């Protein structure tokens, strides 16, 4: 039986160092939930706490209503897929998959049927009598997945399972994992640092930084309506501009530092007249326009990428937030009327419906309806 997982104010410490200062999250039954963040953010630590391989220094983790803090890993009924696959090298593929079932004293014929079925689901039937050494990375990962799922665990935990595979295989396995998970309908917690992987595979994503969840939401919301600047720049690229709010009876407008005015209808109540803000514009949310209709800038470099062209832009320093790697504009070649050249001066208009606005320190969104935990 699949379960819901409640993480209630949990704390993880190594000696005096606090890795996770007190984290709360609720994972729904049957959901594909991804922990996404840069390395060292505590995502694997949290996963291993759920698995039972890391101790819990404070708070509680519950499977449905049962607190599991003190239940040892081998009694939690979890299925885990490891970054290194952790296929037992001395057992054949079939024996690896049977391992958990044997421990559960399953009758032989029932076990055979189950193993046959799962080998078929993950498409490794033809390799079942091989030793793992003679399998490719992708095949080993399928074995690991089959071995974890066949015991019908309460939750499936995956720790960067695709990071050792090459790019093409990663995409293939991604959809295979998603498919199998939906078929079996099992609560899954998935850890990755690859944002594309997270966006493509998850029901919901929790973006983590330094042991704190920055935002939990569906992939679409995470990308289009990030809760703060960290999320907006960690997932995809965002150009950050300095600006102010102007509010009057007619509506609200964000004013860029060079005086360009962008009327917006999506700002929340909180956005007040005169408030300093950060305006976040994604590279694809710009459109070339005529003088006065957008922000003025110069093309610094140009990279041709086939489907689109990526330009990096130079702005006057007072217009943009400091310490950004680059300000980018990507032009969709399918709709481009004019290709820019390096050195061109150009006017770009942000798409008012897509732009995100944050409070001046970047910690919170000023958009209507954006919440930290969706």
């Amino acid at each position, binding site marked *: 039986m699949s379960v819901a997982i409640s993480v209630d104010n949990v704390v993880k410490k190594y000696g005096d160092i606090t890795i996770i200062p007190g984290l709360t999250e609720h994972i729904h039954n049957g959901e594909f939930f991804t922990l996404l963040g840069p390395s060292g953010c505590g995502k694997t630590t949290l996963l291993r706490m759920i698995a039972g391989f890391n101790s819990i220094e404070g708070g509680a983790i519950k499977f449905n209503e049962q607190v599991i803090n003190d239940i040892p890993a081998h*009694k939690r009924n979890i299925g885990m897929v*490891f970054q290194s696959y952790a296929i*037992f090298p*001395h057992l054949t593929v079939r024996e690896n998959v049977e391992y958990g079932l044997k421990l559960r004293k399953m009758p032989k014929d029932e076990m055979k049927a189950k193993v046959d079925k799962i080998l078929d689901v993950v498409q490794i039937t033809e390799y079942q009598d091989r030793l793992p050494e003679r399998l490719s990375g992708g095949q080993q990962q399928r074995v690991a997945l089959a*071995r974890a799922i066949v015991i019908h665990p309460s939750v499936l935990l995956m720790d960067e399972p695709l990071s050792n595979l090459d790019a093409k295989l990663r995409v293939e396995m991604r959809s295979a994992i998603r498919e199998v998970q939906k078929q079996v309908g099992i609560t899954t917690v998935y850890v990755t640092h690859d944002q594309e992987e997270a966006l493509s595979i998850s029901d919901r994503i929790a973006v983590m930084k330094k042991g704190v969840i920055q935002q939990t939401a569906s992939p679409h919301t995470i990308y289009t309506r990030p809760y703060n600047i960290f999320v907006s720049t960690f997932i995809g690229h965002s150009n950050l501009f300095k600006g102010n709010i102007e509010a009057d009876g007619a509506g609200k407008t964000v004013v860029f530092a060079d005086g360009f005015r962008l009327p917006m209808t999506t700002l929340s109540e909180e956005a007040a007249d005169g408030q300093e803000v950060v305006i976040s514009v994604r590279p694809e949310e710009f459109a070339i326009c005529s003088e006065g209709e957008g922000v003025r800038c110069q093309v610094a470099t140009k990279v041709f990428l086939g489907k689109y062209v990526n330009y990096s832009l130079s702005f006057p320093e007072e217009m943009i937030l400091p310490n950004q790697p680059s300000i980018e504009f990507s032009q969709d070649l399918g709709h481009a009327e004019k290709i820019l050249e390096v050195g061109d001066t150009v006017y770009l208009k942000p798409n008012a419906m897509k732009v995100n606005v944050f409070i001046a320190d970047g910690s919170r969104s000023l958009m209507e309806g954006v919440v930290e935990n969706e």
Partner: protein
Amino acid sequence: MNRRFRWDFWAWVTLLSIIIFGLFLIYPLFALFVSAFQDAATGAWSMANFAHFFERKYYYQSMINSFSVTTSVTILAVIIGTALAYFMTLYRVKGRSIVEICIIISLLSPPFIGAYSWILIGGRSGILTKWLAEYGIDFPSIYGFAGILLVLTLKLYPFIYLYVAGAMKNIDSALIEAAESLGCSGIRKVVTIILPLITPTILAGALMVFMNAMADFGTPMLIGEGFNVMPVMIYSEFINEVGDQANFAAAMAAIMVLITSTIFMLQKYVVNRKSFTMSSLRPMQMGALHGVKNVIMHVCIYTLVGLSMIPQLVVIYTSFLKTNGSIFIEGYSFDSYIRIFSELGTAVSNTYLFSTAAMLAIVFLGMTVAYLTTRRKSWLTDIIDTLTMFPYIIPGSVLGITLLLAFNEEPMLLSGTALIIIISLVIRRLPYTLRSSSAILYQLSPSLEEASISLGASPVKTFFKVTAVMMLPGVMSGAIISWITAINELSSSVILFTGATKTMSVAIYTEVIRASYGTAAALSTILTLTTITAMVIFFKVSGRRDVTL
């Protein structure tokens, strides 16, 4: 290979190694087999020597004895070594580094010190025997099967320990976690996961133990008494003053080589069928035992290590005792040491001289042959690679006999020279350096050499300027182990030595036989201290805390 053959540096090295192995290993072995099939008196072809062996219980019993004691030693050593490695890797043990160093010292110490110390302790007039006798307790006899079993097990379990501890460190903790996530724990985890994972390693270690126990000459010679084993039998038949027993000894040696090579190939066959590779991203973490379990574990480990250190301690202690002939008397003195330097000074200098000469040859051969067999693979280097395994299966005394048989006559008269002893040391101890050299070569990317060549250095120059320099740490650590085992070599030297080429090991042996225990103890102390010094250098050079053999 479709490359045209060129008469370059590597061709010379290939030729040189084939000459060395051919002349000093293959040809003598061949000579041994030939003389085993020859009648002593007439020189005609005959199976008489073998018939002689299998007809008389006195002889074939030694084969049965060798087998039973070797098998028992191997089983015991596997159990003790594996258990020790398991607890030492997975649990916190107080004084771990001292324990590890003691284990390595007892492995590398001169082979027969154990036997001779245990005689001093538990022999007929041993310290413990006498002490117990005062209370009317009979100490069980230390001679024969039991004594050999005790001494060899205590000496050889470290092989298993070192091998298995290495393998345990290679088990990825994710494998253990995977087992736990599937619902497995406790003893079942050990049986279904950990044991199968280290089985190939245990088998490799068991082979080393078997070969060493089978070939050991000093221990059964000293403590075996009526319990005859093959190496002792071969030695005494060969040294026999009647002289015409050489052919019979050769036949026994041939039988022994047959046995060891059968075991060797059997082990390789089993291991190959079970082989898999392990690589550990995150080794298993050390835990702590608590309460009674913790106390029991510590008591067991300390007792074991204490028992294996007793021989060295007894030897060092008795070397400072006053002696009167073969009897230790009250009081302490340096007499034994003074006597060594007046009577046995050449044995001391010979030991260092021969071992160092052998080590230099071993370093050159080790590096070049390792390079040949890893980087210049061809059918010829494959043969060389196989030849380098031979010393593992040829007992020292057998190698001694083959060399003596082969180089006993003009124009190749080498017997009685220092050279023949050095040659036997090179052949016997090369594998240690060779293995560590190959291991490091497999880790070095060939592109480093290609880079050097692309910058204009010739292949030979590249080898000496780039490859050899990078190999050096690995080679040196192997060379030190080769050197340590060379200074402690007995079984081949005892057959090859003459008065002028006596080494310390041989001198200890002859002193013990003469019951001159004081000088034997002093010599052993010098050997043990040299071994420890060399080991300290080894740990500094390699930056490691373990030894691979």
